[in-house]
């Protein structure tokens, strides 16, 4: 995979592109642009059109951005194909739902608790499965995912089984309640942006390079002194933690959850987001989530052929852009340049490494 970009020092000084504006300026501009979209343009569109439909789609998209970005961390960056991600999303949702309805705990507690409980399960699952590689690990996560779904479905005394859990309170922080759709969106967006930021700092660093190294060749990485097993477990735990957070957000924004929200097809949907966006590319995972949630809604008007059109679009996107919409190499270069996370050895040179 094209991860490394040529070192600027090898280029003659005359060929190096001139600095358009300083690294700090670019970084500031990009951050501002992304925040403006999430907290300016989208809320403005929701208020401007008065469309609750748009608000609902925006909330769903933000939740799936967390799911897709977290799965990308383990499957894209660390190369462990997990097809049971929806189960951890479910654990988070049930944790938040049960803690708030049975124990009356506030959102400020249920949100991190949902993440931690999902991460704990992720840790327990990771311990025995981390010795498995490639497709064997995938099948193990498939099995675990199904197991968790079946437990949610059948442990009727605890989860109320297929009856689901009703009356989950909306997001509330220190007396402020997200009872309108706009405020709900804003609360979810703040958390989603925070999650993506944490994943960004983890991925776009030498720690992220270590994960990429074990994806490319774990024996080689091991011989270089990287603690492969520990890193694999860590990446899985981080991913399941964020899946749990996404689950808590689903529970608190939809008021009702049932095991049907966390079926196998949901795991596949999240995986498709990551692959369509670009395996190993965090911006790609975000774009993939946006694409896979918005596209089926945008195509509603064509009626019966909607899902065929969605399938065909996915097929074409993989055929024409096999590395995803924002391929990993491009994405890393983009982050190094536009968020000034790389070291530029000479002014305007191609940045390398991580700050």
């Amino acid at each position: 995979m094209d991860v490394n970009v040529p070192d600027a020092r090898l280029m003659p000084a005359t060929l190096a592109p001139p600095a358009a504006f300083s690294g700090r300026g670019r970084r500031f501009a990009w951050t501002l642009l992304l925040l403006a979209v999430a907290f300016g343009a989208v809320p403005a569109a929701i208020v401007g059109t008065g469309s609750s439909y748009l608000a609902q789609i925006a909330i769903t998209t933000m939740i799936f951005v967390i799911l897709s970005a977290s799965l990308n961390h383990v499957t894209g960056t660390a190369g462990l194909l997990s097809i049971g991600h929806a189960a951890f999303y479910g654990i988070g949702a049930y944790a938040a739902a049960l803690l708030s309805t049975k124990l009356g705990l506030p959102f400020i507690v249920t949100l991190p608790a949902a993440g931690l409980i999902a991460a704990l399960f992720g840790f327990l699952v990771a311990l025995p499965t981390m010795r498995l590689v490639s497709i064997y690990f995938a099948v193990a996560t498939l099995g675990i995912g199904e197991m968790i779904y079946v437990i949610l479905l059948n442990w009727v005394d605890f989860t109320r089984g297929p009856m689901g859990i009703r009356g989950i309170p909306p997001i509330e922080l220190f007396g402020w309640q997200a009872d309108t759709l706009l405020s709900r969106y804003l609360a979810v967006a703040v958390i989603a942006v925070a999650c993506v930021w944490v994943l960004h700092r983890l991925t776009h660093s030498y720690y992220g390079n270590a994960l990429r190294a074990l994806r490319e060749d774990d024996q080689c990485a091991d011989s270089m002194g990287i603690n492969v097993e520990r890193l694999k477990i860590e990446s899985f735990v981080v991913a399941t933690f964020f899946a749990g957070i996404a689950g808590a957000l689903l529970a608190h924004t939809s008021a009702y959850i049932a095991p049907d929200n966390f079926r196998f097809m949901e795991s596949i949907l999240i995986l498709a987001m990551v692959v369509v966006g670009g395996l190993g590319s965090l911006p790609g995972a975000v774009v993939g989530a946006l694409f896979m949630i918005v596209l089926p809604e945008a195509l509603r008007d064509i009626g019966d052929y909607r899902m065929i059109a969605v399938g065909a679009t996915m097929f074409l996107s993989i055929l024409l852009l096999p590395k995803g919409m924002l391929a990993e190499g491009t994405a890393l270069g983009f982050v190094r340049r536009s968020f000034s996370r790389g070291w530029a050895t000479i002014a305007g040179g191609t940045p390398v490494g991580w700050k």
Partner: protein
Amino acid sequence: MRKNAILGAVLGAMLATTAVQAADREIVIGYQAPLSGDRSQYGEMFRNAAQIKLEEFNASGKLAGAKVAITFEDSKDDPKEARNIAHKFLDNSKIVGVIGDFSSTVSMAAGEIYAAEKMPQLSQTASHPDFTKLSPWQFRNITTQAFEGPYNADWIIAAGKKTAAVIYIQNDWGISALDGFVSGFKAKGGKITATEAFNPGNRDFRSILTKVARQKPDVIYLAMFYEEGAAFAQQREQLGIKIPLYGTSSLYSPKLIELGRESVEGLHLATTFTPDNPDPAVQTFVKEYAARFKSEPGMFAAQAYDAVGIMLDAVAKAGPSVTRESLRDALAATTGYPGVTGATSFDPVTREPAKALAKMMVKDGRFQVVTGP
């Protein structure tokens, strides 16, 4: 001068169009159902039946000064999509009421939103006990298992059978079917020998059958859908088990006999709808459905046909200036709606439907009405 004339003509035309619109207001009902995905066959039946009912209604002239249309949206039987649809419907000010969704989980995911935003919702099939408890805005046209279970229990006891084993699908509906039947059966002095659950999608019942047959119950009670019902009956025949089968109304479909063939002979069930019913309303519906869609309508199509009928009658009662509030009140006042699934009334307090059920058994390769126990 000429400018003014043109302006006048344009204004006149605009006024004329608004006048026409006022005389013929368009009232829209939203219908959300699984039109793609695993459960699309049900959504397809709902849409077929709804179209017949809608055309009948608009031709009947029950509602002067307005035309009713139905907008269908595909929920894929996915709670996530259902929530999006709920908001799409809410944003459309022409939509005064919603029918759907198919499964209880999906109906309730959307129902939470309709309850908060005050939109009347009528599901043709959601049987979750909590569905109508969401808010006064939820209605359903299906009798729940809390009604059907004791009804079947009475029937089995009246036939002189005292012990029963229950096989049920592990979902919200299956559990309510189990509870309804078991409590009704025990209340009448019956004895439950075993209750066995299977997960949705399972088609192998051999181990359950062997286990249940060992205790020799008088009947086996099936709480499942026709695909599983047919598989169950075939495996029962292959294993040579002769215990008679009773089942929930969900088994009632021509497909059950098509898939199960001889093995489903003698299966008893009570249902709200039977195409053999000589009632002219039923016969018109069955003939029209068969002529258009080349298949005999089952219970699900009939449920949707009546749900649409109840909704449209409520619209007619509320008049051409119907709002979401007035439609809810008109729905709540439904009494004795003469549908193909029996006369339907909504309870004034719980909004649960009450219907008369027809007792049936499979005989000579078709469903026949049973008279007596």
